[in-house]
């Protein structure tokens, strides 16, 4: 809501993004894969923002998700057409930025992680600062946007950056691994885009209460310690909520792994308690 008479100012983030998108619009020299990556980033960021809203706009979300799917389909087709095996003699780092496009493997640039490393080094020598910032934005933003979409309803952002792989020299043996990771990202990404609408269902359904089986809510809790006559608090900190699940209520800490040691510790407490009781009662 705009305040009365207040001028809206662009936040720093918005200013940066505005700069990038006007670069997209005005620059004809921006390589296609870079443009595509920028659009993909913007889409994922928007979807992420919409997930935070109580009632996201369905029309917009559908349009953005379709754009993401279209880009991913394009990327997938390109990766299927290009051979995955790279000749030993060619290292990714040897591809210059413009050379990447002409060699016909634009796909590797945005998502191959070790190449990201090597290309970041290359980029510092590239004169165009916009391309620099684009690549740097793309790596972090894409992985964080993808992972946050995957978490979906839990809104838990377990952002662990993809394993930073060895520098350029060891690229060769790691390469298939990167591609595997990239394809996996793709699948997760697509699944993430599709997962967007899961939340619409839940928020708009008036019968969601009926869908939950009460027992399911509590299945994480190990109740064995409560079967005894005593009760003690778990001494281990609760584990983080489980991942990749549609259950919005699975946030109860799981006590399974710590229950055994808890019981042991509690038994020690119990014997001390008995001892104290004996003294007090005087028996």
């Amino acid at each position: 809501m705009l305040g009365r008479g207040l001028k809206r100012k662009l936040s720093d983030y918005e200013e940066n993004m505005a700069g990038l998108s006007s670069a997209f619009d005005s620059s004809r020299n921006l390589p296609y894969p870079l443009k595509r990556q920028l659009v993909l980033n913007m889409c994922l960021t928007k979807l992420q923002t919409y997930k935070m809203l109580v009632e996201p706009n369905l029309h917009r979300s559908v349009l953005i998700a379709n754009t993401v799917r279209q880009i991913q389909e394009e990327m997938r087709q390109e990766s299927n057409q290009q051979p995955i095996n790279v000749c030993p003699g060619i290292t990714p780092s040897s591809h210059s930025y413009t050379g990447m496009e002409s060699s016909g493997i634009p796909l590797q640039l945005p998502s191959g992680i070790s190449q990201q490393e090597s290309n970041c080094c290359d980029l510092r020598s590239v004169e165009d600062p916009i391309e620099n910032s684009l690549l740097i934005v793309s790596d972090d933003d894409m992985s964080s946007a993808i992972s946050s979409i995957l978490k979906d309803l839990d809104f838990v952002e377990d952002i662990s950056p993809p394993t930073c792989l060895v520098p350029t020299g060891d690229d060769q043996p790691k390469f298939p691994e990167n591609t595997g990771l990239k394809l996996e990202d793709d699948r997760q990404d697509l699944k993430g885009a599709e997962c967007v609408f899961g939340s619409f269902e839940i928020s708009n359904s008036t019968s969601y209460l009926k869908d939950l089986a009460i027992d399911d809510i509590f299945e994480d809790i190990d109740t064995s310690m409560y079967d005894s006559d005593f009760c003690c608090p778990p001494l281990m900190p609760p584990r983080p909520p489980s991942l990749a699940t549609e259950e919005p209520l699975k946030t109860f800490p799981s006590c399974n792994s710590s229950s055994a040691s808890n019981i042991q510790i509690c038994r020690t407490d119990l014997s001390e308690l008995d001892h104290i009781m004996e003294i007090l009662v005087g028996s």
Partner: protein
Amino acid sequence: CFTHYSAAISVLFTADIISTVEFNYSGDLLATGDKGGRVVIFQREQENKSRPHSRGEYNVYSTFQSHEPEFDYLKSLEIEEKINKIRWLPQQNAAHFLLSTNDKTIKLWKISERDKRAEGYNLKDEDGRLRDPFRITALRVPILKPMDLMVEASPRRIFANAHTYHINSISVNSDHETYLSADDLRINLWHLEITDRSFNIVDIKPANMEELTEVITAAEFHPHHCNVFVYSSSKGTIRLCDMRSSALCDRHSKFFEEPEDPSSRSFFSEIISSISDVKFSHSGRYMMTRDYLSVKVWDLNMENRPVETYQVHEYLRSKLCSLYENDCIFDKFECCWNGSD
């Protein structure tokens, strides 16, 4: 009370932002709905020989609060009072009727004039106090005396609880008895007299919401054939349906789509192809659609492409990424036929 609502003096409150406009059939009345849930109706200036050019002016005729903000407790959602659409009913007597809708609820309003009042009641005084019946010795007939024009708006029907998603269109049928309301995924058919029931005539919600790729963006009844209506989608297609063919019109009778021009393809092609408004011509032979950059006129007899295309602001095509970034690419525009078309 907004008694002095003049276009020249407008204090910029967010709630004053006009969200929809609609002329009535004669053009004498112009209704506007705003973000604050208010409806303001303007009336055309009558012909005046001393001011020959005043005929084009519109003055405030009536103002009323149509919708209030509501809270859906079950879903913990606030329902906006912003008026999405207004549609006039054809005039059948001295009063005017219109339908106004927000995201969830449609209301039928009656706007009537009162320019006379009765004087000389037997059972009450001029100031309204009841008289003691035993004191009345003679009877008289009340007489009507002119008074300052008063325009009253009263809600006659409230059509609620039929839409899960946000209502984007309403359209009065040519039978003057029914109307449709459309949200992102469903279209419902109502009878103007019946508020507790509506029929679902289109439902495009997939069994699995994750398969959703298209939403309904606008819908309208044919001006002459009360069994025919069209609805447009976010993918730039229009479907014409005939309610005689089946109760649930999930299968269209006609499907209008222009093949994509491969030379103008971009990442934003689908987004800008989303149709924001569809309107039949008065003859019923053509329909007009508005997408982000253009207006297209379609002949109902030709489904594979429009007969006319007008680029409204082609200069924006080179700025699509910036417009996408600041969400302006999702702005919706309406279109309208000339009265003689």
